[in-house]
């Protein structure tokens, strides 16, 4: 399979007066053309920062301090603002959490869509409109001709997210980064949007990075899952393997914490403790203070990703011991 994007040993630091926050620590991932990868983890694990660092738009004082992002053969982490502008929205598109906020309230959606096309393609106004209509039909917006001249407030939440998706599709990107695209929507709409994303990725052969904290959602849409903990990938494998046979104690905890796993118990399962502050990490495995299967080694050494027989990669000394 052709490789679409390769992230190599990526590091992102936020330098603050009170110290350096290492939000992304040595993450390596690859995504092939048309592949869908889920990134899961709890709040503050570095999921969104990872997403933003791919398009080089981390808000200050964040900075990529190491590693490479190779997109179609070029290291885009070194690109200038102007070079990057040609890739953003063109080859790599991004979808945000809250569709209420991502559309400009004073411009019609037609204007906003055309703007994207005209920023990246040399087409006439008429042709741009045709592309808009085509993409709106793809995301199942009824009577798109009428909708083009409407303002964002005239749409419901689910419709708006569809429009945001349509905007991201306008330039036929190779990769879509969806940062919790359904968190702000209700459950029935969530399913619709996810189905839509899945369908579009399949028909257009687009790569997808789905950032979410909802394991149930990821497992349905993506082929592979990366579990992030404190800025590191702790487990990486096929969705099926990770859901049915989680290897890392953290992933196991996450899956046990799903409400449907509680099976009639009065209280839901949870992982004790909190994620360590990204400012001062423990010496050893970052998960050690919360781990139920703690070894003496875990307190001093940081485990690295090792591939198991099943193909899953996991960063845990426990699994190394088994083999």
């Amino acid at each position, binding site marked *: 399979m052709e490789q679409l994007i390769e992230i190599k040993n990526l590091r992102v630091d936020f330098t603050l007066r009170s110290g350096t926050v290492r939000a992304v620590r040595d993450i390596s991932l690859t995504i092939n053309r048309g592949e869908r990868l889920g990134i899961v983890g709890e709040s503050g694990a570095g999921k969104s920062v990872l997403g933003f660092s791919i398009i080089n738009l981390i808000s200050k004082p964040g900075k990529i301090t190491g590693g490479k992002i190779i997109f179609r053969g070029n290291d885009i982490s070194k690109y200038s603002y102007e070079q990057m502008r040609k890739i953003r929205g063109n080859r790599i598109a991004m979808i945000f959490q809250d569709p209420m906020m991502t*559309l400009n309230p004073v411009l019609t959606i037609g204007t906003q869509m055309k*703007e*994207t096309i005209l920023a990246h393609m040399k087409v006439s106004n008429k042709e741009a409109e045709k592309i808009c209509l085509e993409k709106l039909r793809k995301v199942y917006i009824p009577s798109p001709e009428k909708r083009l001249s409407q303002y964002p407030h005239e749409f419901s939440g689910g419709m708006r997210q569809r429009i945001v998706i349509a905007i991201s599709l306008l330039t036929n990107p190779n990769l879509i980064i969806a940062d919790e695209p359904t968190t702000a929507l209700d459950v029935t709409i969530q399913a619709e949007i996810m189905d839509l994303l899945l369908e579009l990725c399949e028909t257009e052969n687009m790569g997808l990075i789905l950032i979410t904290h909802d394991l149930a959602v990821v497992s349905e849409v993506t082929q592979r899952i990366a579990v992030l903990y404190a800025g590191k990938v702790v487990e990486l494998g096929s969705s099926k393997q990770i859901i049915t046979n989680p290897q890392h104690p953290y992933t196991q905890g996450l899956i046990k914490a799903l409400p449907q796993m509680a099976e009639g118990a009065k209280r839901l399962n949870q992982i004790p403790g909190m994620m360590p502050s990204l400012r001062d990490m423990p010496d050893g495995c970052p998960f050690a203070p919360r781990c139920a299967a703690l070894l003496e080694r875990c307190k001093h050494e940081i485990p690295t990703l090792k591939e198991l027989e099943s193909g899953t990669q996991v960063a845990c000394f426990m699994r190394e011991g088994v083999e």
Partner: protein
Amino acid sequence: MRTRWQRFKQSYMLYSFLRDPVALTSFIILAILVFSAFGAPIVAPHDPYDPTTIEIMDAQIAPAWSEGGSSKFLLGTDAQGRDMLSTMLYGMRVSLLIGVGAVCLQAFIGIIVGLLSGYVRRLDNILMRIADVQLSFSTYMIAIFIGAIVQTAFGVAGYDRVAVPLLIAIIGLAEWPQYARTVRASVLAERKKEYVEAARIIGLSRIRIMWRHILPNTLSPVLVISTVQVANAIMSEAALSFLGLGMPVTKPSLGSLITAGFEYIFSGSWWITIFPGILLVGLILVINLLGDWVRDFLNPKLYKG
């Protein structure tokens, strides 16, 4: 598809406007004033700019209804024998022209500076300090300074010709920081919003993001201060004219009419000062009342009780 006009007719803006008697009355009065000012050559009974029609014998005739009044001059005449009503209409035209012109200039400079300093963080400090320096000069001080220089440079006859653009430039340049600060504050609030981030992710250029995405979202405070600033600019012009630094007596504005009449007020010719004064106060009042309505409409959070 609804046309713009149909959309306007159904809009909440029109509805709320028609239900507010103060706004409606102010608007009607303002419309009459503006119409009669700009239609002065048609509406006014005399032409105060044409010296051949002015008779010095007609000087200081009282208003038509009082003793010694003439039905030819409804509001009396001034010291040079010009019909007060006509002179006031022509004067209001000059005042409005300067007021609106100065505000356009202020808005133009202020919006550009405000956008740049709000969005491009590197420019913020320097632009805002320039604005602070500008604000620390009084409008009148600058006006007196420049006005004196121009008057000596062009002579009295030449000054007549440049007076209107000069006053527009002086008042415009003195007040732009008001706009710059308002726009900057709104830009700072808007640039944090996600649609701006989304626009960056789409890959739009900075200028386009500033101009097409942020600016339209900052326009409501701009609209509100614009109405207030028109009233302020007209008042500034009147004050400058009163001090003898504004419009010359041959092409009077409301302010210079008030000054011109001031000398005669003790000799009993009160109408030369009082009528332009009332007109000026009325004009400013209706503009401010309309401005209040615009502010209340655009910022519903301010609803009073």
